[in-house]
């Protein structure tokens, strides 16, 4: 990776990142809360299961991201799904059964299922 030597180079680099991210817009983005707490609640197992199920369903256009704590300790494991052209949706307390339901109904048919966590915060 080349060094960023000035403010202008930083701006240039950010634009490049944004440009590269544009190709992600038509992909399903799944973020999995994997801080210590999420992992303890079984988050990494859920991640493996999601990848396995996506392969089984032959869904290829997806990105899986490990992220930090989303703040919903009482609802771990927690995942956030962004379908192309949709607002992100967060599901809490997911298990294998829930993942099956989410993939079948939401990922394939775009139908929201029970158990979403409404956004209850503002950010900057």
């Amino acid at each position, binding site marked *: 990776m080349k060094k960023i030597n*000035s403010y202008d180079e930083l701006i240039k680099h950010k634009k490049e990142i944004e440009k590269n991210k544009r190709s992600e817009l038509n992909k399903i983005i799944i973020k999995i809360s994997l801080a*210590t707490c999420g992992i303890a609640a079984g988050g990494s197992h859920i991640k493996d299961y999601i990848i396995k199920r996506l392969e089984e369903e032959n869904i290829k256009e997806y990105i899986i991201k490990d*992220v930090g704590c989303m703040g919903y300790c009482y609802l771990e494991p927690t995942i956030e799904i962004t379908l192309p052209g949709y607002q992100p949706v967060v599901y809490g307390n997911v298990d294998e059964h829930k993942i099956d339901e989410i993939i079948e109904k939401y990922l394939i048919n775009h139908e929201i299922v029970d158990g979403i966590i409404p956004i209850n915060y503002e950010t900057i």
Partner: protein
Amino acid sequence: MSYQRYCLVCNSSKCGHYSKAIADNIKHYLRENNIKDIKVVMTECFGLCKQGPIVKIMPDNIVYSGVKPMDTKEIVEKHLINGEVVSRLVHENKKSKQLKIVLRNCGFIDPENIDDYIEKDGYFALAKALKMSRMDVINEIKLSGLRGRGGGGFPTGLKWEYAYKQNSDQKYVVCNADEGDPGAFMDRSVLEGDPHSVIEGMLICGYAIGSNKGLVYTRAEYPLAVKRLSKAIKDAREYGFLGNNIMGSGFNFDIEIKYGAGAFVCGEETALIRSMEGERGEPTSKPPYPAESGYWDKPTNVNNVETFANVPVIINKGANWFNKIGTEKSKGTKVFALAGKINNVGLIEVPMGITLREIIFDIGGGIKDGKRFKAVQTGGPSGGCLTEKDLDTPIDYDTLLAKGSMMGSGGMIVMDEDDCMVAVAKFYLEFTVDESCGKCTPCRVGNKRLYELLEKVTSGKATFSDLDKIKNLSNVIKDTALCGLGQTAPNPVLSTITNFWDEYVAHVNEKSCPSGQCKELIRYIIDHNKCVGCTACVRVCPVYAISGKVREPHTIDQDKCIKCGACYNTCKFDAIYKK
């Protein structure tokens, strides 16, 4: 089947009592009107529990609060069929209770990907600061009103200025990530979720005070935080944000991680510095302050993880933006770790000045199992408890101090009617007794004696003169201990004795524990009117204390009983009660 609209019904904590009836009613009316393209979905908490139950219509983005099952017909017929909003139920105040500044990226970006951070304007604050003069950076932080988030609440800008004014060939920036309060996990979450924000904050601080060396003191028990932070430091070096001549400015800075062994006292800045030097983690008396003589006797600026995570936002958005949030003397937001007997255990970030009621009953979803709220402990073992009468006090550094508690690093442990406050005070004191480094007498001996006095209370052996002794000794320790750990250790005792004097008196006078928590003071008794003589309790009693014939009422021999509660939990007829 694709749906035109979604009807979101909150199915969590308080709303949950009605949610099934509400959802069933809506489904019923939808069926009655032969509507098939609207789906009813159960959701988790909206963070508006006090105004619940909540129903939200999407994509219309209309929130209805205080919805009763009988309101559903109107919602379906008026809104869902005719598209007319039911104005009497609309929840007007759409402003959320939470505001994420420190947690802005936590849970949104990949912490191990520096590009994710740059995309969210990461390292732009650094670039901006490097173009400012050192004093301008410090003035910006001063103007923002940012105060130390580790608990003390010392103005960060002032601290930086002291360090800036020192003449020395070497200065240090230290990030205090030694999070030791029971039930607190704010710093860990920030380091695991957004390590670059802490690195950037340290860089800006290093530039401002004229230091080229940063150290993060963290616990070895946080392996994931250490792993992600190490990766972040490595990436930042590759990009040239750490190292020599950063972004062509001529400023050099690098960061090293130091591991602590997990002693609570090492969160105290002088003990932390001793520990980093390889000495015993014992505090030294102040002055000299670390800003004058700290790590290897050089000027050292110590700030907490959360404080550093605030810095890039202040530089990016400006001090005037930041100081509009919060109260007069406490600006910005605070991250709290909500734990204990509360429905929505979690990590929250709220603007200063929010009330406890909003935190516990809105964001937190109220007390578990519908029990009554009793108290909340803020500031961990150094803080105090706040009670029902404090629920509407706006929370900031000064109001909490005035109430005999403190902000602390942000642990918030909620207690319900089942908790005995004497036992709670004893629990926290036991923690400090364990964690005392033993250097000064008031803390080493005083807290131990104080603990023994509390033990006398919880075992029903105390007299009123012991209660006087407890108060006296607490105040002496407070006034004479060497460091913050000892000075604040009696806080839980003092605040519970002030707020729950009756409970202490009951332990002394009636030799009873009103909450039924203190083992020595409770007795398990079998109600002979309810006991059917099923012998279930006889079979689980580990000390054979229960006797009686089959199908006849049983009795517990109080001399043999060890109060394990096994019989109490086994009885299916509620025939055993605690006294």
